[in-house]
């Protein structure tokens, strides 16, 4: 209310000033020109040229086939699903040098459609979009142009010839992660939190809860899970703790701190790079507080925190993205859906690295048995099959 008024008076006062200022010297012109240049350069830098520069640096554009990828808001370096997807693209290039790859970053949801459109104009052989949130934009683009091949990481689509959904049954390996966390917890409380309340995130949390409940049932224990309570009707829905983004590490730190204050000593963040904030808090708190990393092997993607990663609950994004790009380049691409499971090694726990000797052999053996049971279908990963602790 007050400010516009103040500004009006200011404008009136200074109306004749700018001309005199300008005449005084070239200063203003330079500042304005510099500012405009910087803003333009930086605005572009955030999205477009940066991408092509980075891609061009890695890869010659000599290839006859162009594989293109659009990241989610987490960005290319989220040590998580965007980073893995890009590694999959690079792996496809490494396997067949005729494939050139490039990416565009989305800094917000409003970038999804423009980025996809930009790639369509560049005649990409396949456009890989990363993340559940980009599914709607990808689906409408695929419907609009049946000759353009698309693949989306983390989504299941209705059957279309030019669209591949890549989906992971991460509740299976998160179940193992939950069991391991419960077995390793000294306080009898473990915690989880998510980035955004969407199925690709909550499927991890739900599997984790199921694993803890299974541990309690079969070991007469009472380990509690904080941060996620799956609903009775559909375990992918529920109430729980979310940071609300895949970008704000400060929120990850706060959520991990909150969970530790409430007694949790092993925490499983399902929030991409936001988990790094949790890692900072857990490392600062010191043993016996540890965590499990998500999506990728944390000891490789965030090695500075390897000493606090009990394990990582991973999904094989690299392999499946690589396979999709190679298939598109070699003419064997088929639309539909790929479902990564423990059985086809599409999901799984990472090696234990620093914890290989700290996790009791008996627990490691139990995890092998559980894994086989889940693959056979004799062990359910639905938390509602087990009594809630």
């Amino acid at each position, binding site marked *: 209310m007050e400010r516009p008024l103040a500004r009006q008076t200011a404008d009136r006062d200074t109306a004749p000033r700018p001309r005199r*200022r300008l005449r005084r010297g070239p200063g203003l012109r330079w500042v304005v020109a510099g500012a405009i240049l910087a803003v333009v350069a930086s605005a572009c830098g955030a999205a477009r040229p940066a991408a092509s520069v980075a891609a061009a640096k890695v890869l010659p554009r000599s290839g006859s086939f162009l594989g293109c990828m659009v990241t989610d808001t987490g960005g290319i*370096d989220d040590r998580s699903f965007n980073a893995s997807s890009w590694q999959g693209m690079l792996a496809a290039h490494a396997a067949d040098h005729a494939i050139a790859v490039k990416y565009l970053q989305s800094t917000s949801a409003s970038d999804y459609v423009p980025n996809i459109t930009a790639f369509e104009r560049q005649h990409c052989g396949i456009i890989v979009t990363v993340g559940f949130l980009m599914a709607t934009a990808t689906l409408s683009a695929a419907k609009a142009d049946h000759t353009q091949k698309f693949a989306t990481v983390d989504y299941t689509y209705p059957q279309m010839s030019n669209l591949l959904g890549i989906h992971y049954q991460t509740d299976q390996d998160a179940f193992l992660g939950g069991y391991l966390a419960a077995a390793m917890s000294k306080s009898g409380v473990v915690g989880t939190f998510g980035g955004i309340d969407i199925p690709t995130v909550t499927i991890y949390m739900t599997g984790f809860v199921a694993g803890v409940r299974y541990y309690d049932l079969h070991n007469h224990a009472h380990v509690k899970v904080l941060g996620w309570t799956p609903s009775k009707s559909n375990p992918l829905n529920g109430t729980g703790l979310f940071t609300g983004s895949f970008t704000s590490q400060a929120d990850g730190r*706060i959520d991990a701190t909150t969970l530790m204050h409430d007694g949790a000593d092993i925490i499983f963040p399902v929030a991409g790079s936001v988990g790094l904030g949790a890692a900072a808090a857990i490392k600062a708190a010191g043993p016996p507080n540890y965590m499990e990393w998500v999506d990728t092997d944390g000891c490789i993607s965030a090695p500075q925190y390897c000493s606090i990663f009990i394990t990582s609950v991973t999904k094989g994004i690299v392999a499946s993205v690589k396979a999709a790009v190679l298939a598109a380049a070699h003419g064997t691409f088929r639309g539909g859906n790929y479902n990564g499971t423990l059985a086809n090694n599409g999901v799984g726990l990472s090696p234990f690295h620093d914890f290989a000797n700290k996790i009791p052999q008996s627990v490691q053996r139990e995890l092998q048995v559980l894994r086989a049971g889940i693959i056979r279908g004799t062990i359910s990963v639905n938390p509602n099959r087990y009594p809630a602790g």
Partner: protein
Amino acid sequence: MSATAWTATASGARARGRHTWLGVFTAALGGLTAFAFCLHVGGGVTATLNMNSQPAAAIPLVVLPVRLTCAVLAAVSAAAGAAILRRQGGRGTYGLLTLGLVAFTLAFVIWAARGTEVSFEGLLASTLIDSIPLMFGALSGVMCERSGVINIAIEGQFLGGAFLGAMIGSLTGDLWLGMVAGAAGGAALGGLLAVLCLRYQADQIIVGIVIVTFATGVTSFLDLQVLTPNQATLNSPQVFGNIAVPVLDRIPLLGPILFDQNIFLYLALALLATIQVGLFHTRWGLRVRAVGEHPRAADTVGISVLFIRYRNVILGGAIGGLGGAALSIGSTGEFTSDMSAGLGFVALAAMIFGRWSPLWAATACLLFGFADSLQSNLAVLNVPIASPFLLMAPYIAVILAVAGLVGRVRPPGADGQPYRRE
């Protein structure tokens, strides 16, 4: 004369309407407490508040019967509302309103913790941690605006400070250098603001927004091009550890919260005290306020308006940069693009809510920090509220605070107006 009298009467009537509204609101909170939290809970249900940071309990757990406690708190809110209505103005209105709000919030927490345990100490501790960057941001705003320059660019100063703090802290391996670099980064952006607003008298709000966009873009660009390929050398700083103040950190409940914290909290509190005392009790502060309220008068008595404004804006920028450094080397130990995630604007709101006073602005920061901390604690307690709504809590608090509770605030008289000599 008569015009003045008329204005006074009109504002008096407005104030009375406002007090009625606030009274009804506070009383309604009491009703809501009774209705939502008391009625549905069985008589024997208790909530446990844990006041300890360590598992070894120094303070016994506080076990409260939920229904009885809620009823008492509902009565407190209702009584506060009735008192506001009866007094119709007077000095105690906002105190009573605060009392009503506190009672309501406490009832909510106790209801959410029914049948289980909540770490009350954790709730307060994360409130404080959440509000550290906000305090720096709000103080940055106070420094600039008290001297008459609007600082919308706090978000940009955060990003600049976080970026340089992480990079220099990582490159040199010296966190203190990182802190200095963060402050320098903020000061540089403050200097840009000062030059554009003071030398070229550009519109201060537009310049502020441009600086935010500029800082966002440049730091994201450099993050991608420079930091990411050299993550190990350029973006892996250590993090400042906690420093326990001897003796004081043993105080039950408040000790670990206030006196076993990051250097950035102590720095924020020291700055807060310095600026509060400086602004209102020193010659420097008198001059700053004179320049911010009535630059012509200040100029007449020989104070250099431009010099004071340049100095304050650059200092304010440096304080904003420290807030950014608190986000990277004081918290998560690396820079990620857009990591301030809008906190700069929350800090701006805190400054306005705090009426351009350092102390009240810091209080407002605590309030926003509490809203954020409360939402994550409520989520852990499994409150049946969808997470997007819980995540809105801090922003709803901002809107209610700035739009509803503050009402009419008066910025420094010359805030946002360029000064030129006749």
